[in-house]
C-alpha cells in the first residue's frame, strides 16, 4: 500500500510542489486571474479594486518569506508604510509620474530591508517575528515623531497622481486602476519568478530542513537576507501604489496592525501558494469594505473571528485547502492508473 506524500509530508503545512505540476491547469488559473483583474473595477468601486490588487501583492510578497522560506515577519508594515511615505513625498515634491515615485518607494523599502534583514535573519521562529516587530515599531515611531516630513498623526495629505499629463488617469480612479495595474502584476510575476527559480528551490529547502541545506554548502543567512530584501521591495511596490491610490498616507500604514493584517490575509488564503495571497486579500478587503459601508464598527472583531474559524477549519488556508484536495484526488487517480512503484 502506498502512503501519500500529500497527506503525510507537510510538516510545514505546505504541499509538495513536485506533485501535480499540471501546466494546463496553471494556464487556466492565470487566464482566470488576469481576466478577474481586468474586469474588477467594472464591478467594484475602482479605488477598492485597486486596494485589493495592492494588498494581494503585499500578501504575496510576505508569502515569499512566510510560505517559501519559513520566516514569519511581523514587521512588514515598515516596508509597506515607508514606501507609501517615500512614494507620497516623491510625488508631492517632484511631481514625477506616479510609477517613478512608486519605484522610488520600493527602492527605499529595499534599502531599509538590508540592515533590518541583516539583524533579523539570524533569528528563527518566534524570535524572528519579535525582532521584525521591534524594528517595525521603531520605524513607526520615527514616522510618528518626524511630523515635519510625514505629517505625523494627520498623515501625508494631498499626494498628487501625475501621469504624463494624461487627464483621465490623473482624475478618474477607473482609469488610474488600469495605469497602476501593470506595476502590481509585474510585482506578482516577479514573485512567481523568484519562487520558481534556483533561488526559490533553495529557499524551500531551507524551510524544510535548514541544517541539511547548510550541510550542502548553502549560506543560509545570505539566502534569507536576499529573500527578505526582495520581499520588502515587492511590498514597497504595493505600498507605493496604495499611497497614490488614496492620495494620502496615514500613519496606520506603519502600524503593527498593518503587519498583522497582511499575515492574516496570507494565512487566510493559504501560505506557500501565491494564489492564496490573492484570495486572502480579496476576501479581507471586501469584508472590511462591506462592514465599513454598512456602518458597522467592530470590523476587527469580525475579521478576527473569520480568521480564527478559517485557521481552525482549514489548516492550510482557503486556497491551500482547495489545492490540497485537488492534489490528493490527482494522486489517487495516478495511483489507480498504474501500480505504484515501491
Amino acid at each position: 500500500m502506498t502512503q501519500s506524500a500529500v497527506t503525510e509530508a507537510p510538516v510545514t503545512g505546505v504541499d509538495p510542489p513536485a506533485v501535480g505540476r499540471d501546466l494546463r491547469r496553471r494556464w487556466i488559473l492565470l487566464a482566470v486571474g488576469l481576466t478577474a483583474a481586468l474586469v474588477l473595477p467594472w464591478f467594484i468601486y475602482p479605488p477598492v479594486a485597486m486596494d485589493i490588487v495592492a494588498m494581494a501583492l503585499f500578501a504575496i510578497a510576505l508569502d515569499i518569506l512566510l510560505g517559501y522560506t519559513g520566516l514569519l515577519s511581523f514587521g512588514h508594515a515598515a516596508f509597506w508604510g515607508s514606501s507609501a511615505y517615500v512614494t507620497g513625498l516623491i510625488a508631492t515634491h517632484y511631481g514625477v509620474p506616479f510609477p517613478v515615485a512608486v519605484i522610488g518607494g520600493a527602492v527605499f523599502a529595499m534599502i531599509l530591508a538590508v540592515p533590518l534583514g541583516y539583524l533579523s535573519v539570524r533569528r528563527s521562529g518566534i524570535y524572528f517575528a519579535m525582532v521584525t516587530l521591534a524594528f517595525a515599531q521603531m520605524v513607526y515611531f520615527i514616522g510618528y515623531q518626524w511630523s515635519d516630513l510625514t505629517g505625523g498623526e494627520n498623515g501625508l495629505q494631498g499626494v498628487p497622481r501625475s501621469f504624463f499629463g494624461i487627464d483621465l488617469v490623473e482624475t478618474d480612479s477607473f482609469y488610474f486602476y488600469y495605469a497602476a495595474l501593470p506595476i502590481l502584476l509585474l510585482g506578482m510575476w516577479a514573485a512567481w519568478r523568484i519562487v520558481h527559480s534556483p533561488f526559490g528551490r533553495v529557499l524551500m529547502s531551507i524551510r524544510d530542513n535548514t541544517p541539511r541545506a547548510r550541510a550542502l554548502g548553502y549560506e543560509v543567512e545570505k539566502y534569507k537576507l536576499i529573500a527578505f530584501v526582495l520581499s520588502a521591495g515587492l511590498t514597497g511596490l504595493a505600498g507605493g501604489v496604495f499611497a497614490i491610490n488614496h492620495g494620502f498616507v496615514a500613519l496606520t500604514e506603519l502600524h503593527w496592525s498593518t503587519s498583522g493584517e497582511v499575515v492574516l490575509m496570507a494565512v487566510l488564503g493559504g501560505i506557500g501558494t501565491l494564489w492564496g495571497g490573492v484570495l486572502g486579500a480579496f476576501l479581507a478587503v471586501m469584508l472590511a469594505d462591506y462592514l465599513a459601508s454598512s456602518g458597522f464598527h467592530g470590523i476587527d472583531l469580525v475579521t478576527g473571528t473569520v480568521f480564527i474559524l478559517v485557521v481552525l477549519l482549514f489548516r492550510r488556508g482557503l486556497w491551500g485547502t482547495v489545492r490540497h484536495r485537488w492534489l490528493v484526488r490527482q494522486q489517487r487517480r495516478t495511483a489507480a492508473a498504474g501500480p505504484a512503484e515501491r
Partner: protein
Amino acid sequence: MLAVTADARVAVRTRALTKVFRGFRAVDAVDLEVREGSVHALVGPNGAGKTTLFNLLTGFLTPTSGTILVFDEDVTGQPPERVARRGVARSFQITSLFETLTSREHVELALQGLTSQGFRFWRSEKLLGRDRARVEDLLEQVGLLRLADKPVGLLAYGQKRALELSLVLALEPRLMLLDEPTAGMGIEDVDRTIELIRRIAAGRTVVLVDHNMRVVGSLADRVTVLQQGRILAEGPYDEVRNDERVITAYLGEADHA
C-alpha cells in the same frame, strides 16, 4: 596550499577536542588523526559521542575547547556551510531530507550547493535540471533512478538512506563523514552500500560510523574506538577487534556487533 610533511598527509586532526553539554562531557579531549585517502571507522557503544564528534567536525556544534584541522586548515568554530565549502560532506544519522522534494530535486540541490547558481532568483528553476545526465548518474549509483520523480515522503527507509549517500556524493567531497549509512538496511542493501562506499572512497577520505562490524571490517583501514567521549583504542581493524578493553566495552552492546 600543500603543506607537505614527512609523514602521510592528514585529512583531519583534532587536538584535545572537547564538547560539554551542561556538565556532561560528550566528547572528552579527543586527539583524532585521519590519514588522507583512508577509510577510518569510528565505533563505540551508543552514546559514546560519535555523532557529537561529527557535529563538531562539520561545524554544527562549537567545541567547548580544542581545535580542529581539516586538510591542515583550522576550521574550529566555522559554520557548517563554510566547512562544506572546504570539501567536507556529511550524511546524517537520522535521515534528514527535504520532505516535499523529489529525489531528483534533492540531487539537483546538492549539485548546486557549492556554486553561486542558487542566488539566481531571476532565472527559471529549469536551470537546476540542466545537468540531467549527472543527476541521473548519481541516482543510478545508489539505485534510485527509477524513483527519481517521487517525493521523498513516499520512499522507504532504506531508499532514503541511499539518497543521503547520493547527496554526499554530489558534493564531490575530499572528506566524507558517514554517520551509520547502513542503519536499518536489509542485508542486500548493506552489501550494495558497502560496495558503493568502497567505490566512492577511491581518492577520498572517509570517516565512517557504523555498528555493523561487517561494514567496518570490510571497509576500514583504521578503527578508532570511542567510549564515554574518550578514545579507548585505535589501530587496524584486526588489532582493535581483539583488544580486550574493546571487547569489554562492547559486551553490553553485543546485539549491535
